[in-house]
């Protein structure tokens, strides 16, 4: 039988489990010092039961999950999902609504172009700007012309 105590690597292997070194396991089973070392480490590495939830909490969460599972998936969608979906629908529908409102009557493009040509050929400034502005501009030009002459 082996008399040397377990090395740190052998100790780790025992704790990790899986394939075992038979001699190391045998020594750990018979050597008081090594057995105590392994025991202390196992105790320290085990789950902290003090932090486990109470039976009531566990039951409540389990029941909530079962209730959610019983619902159709569509009904389980969170509130934010519905908000995003509503926003997307609105964003997509808005252009369609707007194009529906701008329902313009039929127009004769050639006629409109002809009227524009006539207007611009006669007095383009009057066509493009308000009458007050055109009058003011004309008065200004007259003043300037008088000043230049004198």
């Amino acid at each position, binding site marked *: 039988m082996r008399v040397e105590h377990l090395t740190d690597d052998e100790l780790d292997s025992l704790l990790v*489990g*899986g394939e075992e070194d038979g001699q190391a396991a045998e020594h750990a089973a018979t050597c008081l010092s090594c057995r105590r070392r392994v025991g202390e480490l196992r105790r320290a590495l085990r*789950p902290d039961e003090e932090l486990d939830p109470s039976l009531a*909490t*566990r039951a409540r969460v389990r029941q909530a*999950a079962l209730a*959610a599972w019983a619902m159709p998936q569509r009904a*389980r969608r969170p509130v934010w999902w519905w908000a995003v979906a509503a926003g997307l629908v609105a964003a997509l529908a808005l252009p369609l609504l707007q194009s529906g409102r701008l329902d313009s009557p039929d127009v004769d493009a050639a006629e409109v172009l002809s009227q524009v040509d006539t207007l611009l050929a006669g007095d383009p400034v009057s066509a493009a700007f308000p009458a007050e502005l055109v009058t003011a501009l004309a008065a200004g030009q007259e003043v300037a012309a008088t000043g230049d002459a004198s």
Partner: protein
Amino acid sequence: MASVPRRELPVESDDELTLVERARAGDREAAGQLLERHELSVWRVCRHLLPPGEDVEGAVQETFVRALDKLHRYSGKGSFGGWLATIAANYCRDRRRRGRLVPFRSLEGEEEDDANPLAVFPADGPDPERTAMGRQAMARVQRELARLPRRQQEAFVLRFFAGMELADISAALGVDVGSVKTHLHRAVRRLREQVLEAVP
């Protein structure tokens, strides 16, 4: 011989597969029994692998709902508990990735953390001094566990807190068994050092 907890309630695998079949058919009672058998592992996985400040209760519930929705995908090859713990670990990884949270532990929080784990060791044990040191060791392990690299942390929690076999952990983490062992050895070495500082 592995020292990790295997199952929370003694079950026969046939019995468990029957429950899975019944749950797949919509039997709510069977589904409840399945969850109850393995729920502690899920709680522990979520508690240790979720980013700090995340809702553990919500994570456990979400894990359960996902598992029940995907019951048809459970092949029956590995243990059902391991499959459930894997879903929990994946959920926690998603949360961590989404939040891009850097692990943070306040000094105040560490003091609080020290308080709870100590009660695991009975105060009226045969050797009070040794018991106190053991309590301190456990507190150190809990604290150090949160500082391990993610892979080591996941491997450790799945092995020691969820009781999963190495092959199941390998499948859960998407790495070979040798890598799982390496992660576990590194984690155990680091945690052992903490224990030995408390229990010389």
